[in-house]
């Protein structure tokens, strides 16, 4: 009998509280625009912060109200972009996702050390001490700060001290680009099949002294590429590949005496 009384009391109390809650949820409801809600739902919903906003809701609001780029939700990948594009009525026919690449091939076999570094194993700290211990003042220091910073575990360090990007895992969030003190990581479109894997802007003589695979500014690639100067042009001592003009050039390293070009093996888009 007493059980029934207890059930009854609890039942009545919960009924009253339910009415209160129901009223409160209507009375104090946070009004969300349907559009923002829709965008938020199409985002990955991880609140990871990769987009640069504190959470998915904030990014959705920014998309709707501030016209920011819609491709910042890295975990959502292409699908998310397409969904948001439909909601926002944006044309995404030309949208190509990006991928991070390592623009240095100077592993510890191809380069030397100017001195022994004994500090904290972090590229940023090593770079601020004596301009880095590597013979090349532009090249990868190989202490793996990018690999540790990557939120998706897409970067691993190989045995020769260079980072390797797992393109399947890479979401082009750009954390590695920001972390690398030498700006070696770059985001390139996923349909780009090759890129120049050297960023040393010094003269050819200096570079050939310090690295076996560094660009020596010989301009062979500028002269011999299929698109001529429109495809690859010189910016000072470094060639620049125009990703809009030339996407594929399998024979690049046959032309380049130092084999400075790198090719993306995977064709994951």
């Amino acid at each position, binding site marked *: 009998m007493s059980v029934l009384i207890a059930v009854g009391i609890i039942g009545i109390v919960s009924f009253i509280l339910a009415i209160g809650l129901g009223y409160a949820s209507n009375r104090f409801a946070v009004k969300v625009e349907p559009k923002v809600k829709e965008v938020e739902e199409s985002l990955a919903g991880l609140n990871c912060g990769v987009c640069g906003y504190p959470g998915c809701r904030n990014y959705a609001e920014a998309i709707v109200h501030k016209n920011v780029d819609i491709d910042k939700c890295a975990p959502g990948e292409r699908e998310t972009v397409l969904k948001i594009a439909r909601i926002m009525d944006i044309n995404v026919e030309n949208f190509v996702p990006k991928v991070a690449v390592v623009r240095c091939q100077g592993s510890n076999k191809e380069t030397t050390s100017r001195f022994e570094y004994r500090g904290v194993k972090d590229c940023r700290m090593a770079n*601020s001490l004596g301009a880095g211990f590597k013979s090349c003042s532009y090249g990868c220091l190989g202490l793996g700060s990018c690999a540790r910073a990557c939120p998706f575990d897409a970067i691993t360090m190989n045995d020769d001290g260079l980072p390797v990007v797992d393109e399947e895992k890479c979401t082009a969030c750009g954390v590695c680009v920001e972390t690398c003190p030498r700006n070696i990581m770059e985001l390139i479109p996923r349909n780009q099949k090759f890129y120049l894997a050297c960023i040393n802007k010094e003269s050819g003589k200096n570079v050939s002294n310090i690295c076996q695979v560094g660009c020596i500014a010989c301009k062979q690639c500028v002269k011999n590429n299929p698109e001529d100067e429109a495809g690859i042009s010189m910016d000072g001592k470094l060639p620049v590949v125009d990703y809009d003009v030339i996407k594929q050039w399998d024979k690049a390293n046959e032309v380049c005496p130092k084999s400075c070009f790198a090719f993306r093996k995977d064709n994951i888009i």
Partner: protein
Amino acid sequence: MKTFRGGVHPDCKKESADIKIEKADLPPKLIIPLQQHIGAPAQPLVEVGDEVKKGQKIAEAGGFVSANIHASTSGKVIDISEYLYPNTMGRKALSAIIESDGKDEQDEQIKPYEAKLFDSDDLVDHIEGQEILDLIREAGVVGMGGATFPTDVKLNIPPGKEIDSIILNGVECEPYVTPDHRLMVEKPEKVVDGLRFMMKAINVNRGFIGIEMNKPDAIESIRKATGKYSNIKVFPLKVKYPQGWENILIKVILDREVPPGSLPLDVGVVVANVGTSAAVSDAVRHGYPLIERVVSVTGSGIAEPRNLLVKIGTPFLHIIEQCGGFKGTVKKVIAGGPMMGFTMFDVNIPVIKGTTNILALTDQEVKEHEPKPCIRCGRCVNVCPVRLVPRMIALLAKQDEFEKAEEYNPLDCKECGCCAYICPAKIPLVQLIQHAKADIMARQRAAKAK
């Protein structure tokens, strides 16, 4: 005896403390960086191929906070381009390379101050304050304790600031380093003389010379030299590192606290190194520009430790060779002392105005320690003279939590190295704090640019 809170007691190891200062040999080639001071680099006045005389001005101060650069010997300018110079960042600076002609001829324009007066004790009463400042600026005198801040700028007191004392820093608390010590023993009159000129220049009637107790000979000789002047007081100090940091000197001698973010002149004090003081005396009395300085060459990796009067621009290797060369397996060559100096990876870099010491350490002393986890013993907090919490800053810096690290005021850190020295887990605390500082300063600059 009054002292400060915190600090450490590293082994002094002043191997060269009793060795007389000798003149170094003239090197065949001098590398003279045009940026040897804090502030704007000097602008070159000579071109490649020009003949220069010793003491000739080869670069003009490139701004208010900047200093003139002079040729250290006579010869020919054979190159003006970027060369490495002593700094932690591995930066290069525009440098003039002078091939010495061996004659060491002095520029005729260098004249002593008025023939009758130049070596008289009363010169200080006859000369105007502004005149002293102009002579110091012309001679390119900068702080010779290592910071290389232009001395005339330091003595140029902004309106509204009251200065009542000058403190000469003869503490030299870093292990191994001895140039100031020798200077005080051998040329105490010059040190005191420079102090009197500086006091006159900013119209101050009270001078102190702070010297650590482990240099009784220096205290005695400076006491003798100051005997005549009742307004200059020698202040013996407890042997403790970093006793020679100016804020601590002010605290110990005058019991004034320099607030974070302020300068000594905000509490009415100017602090200068004893070497700077001697250079001021030379500049005012004889018109000599700052072209040579005393450098101690010490460490277990040096065959015969010595104190040498070296011309600015002499390559390290040339100096080390005069000290019998390297001994044993040298692992590290440090410009400055072991606590705050920086390891150089190239021994062809030149001595600059701020180079106090060349230290070579062998593989016996240079040991690599794998950092162990922090055990929260609190020793770094105990020894920090700025009263920071080094371990928290380092921990947060390691995790890239710079915004949280900022709450622990890493920007007040002077990088004296006490925390890293005392840490039983051998955590590179200073490097991690520098990392946090670099990030915070970069963000502040970005915010300012906006």
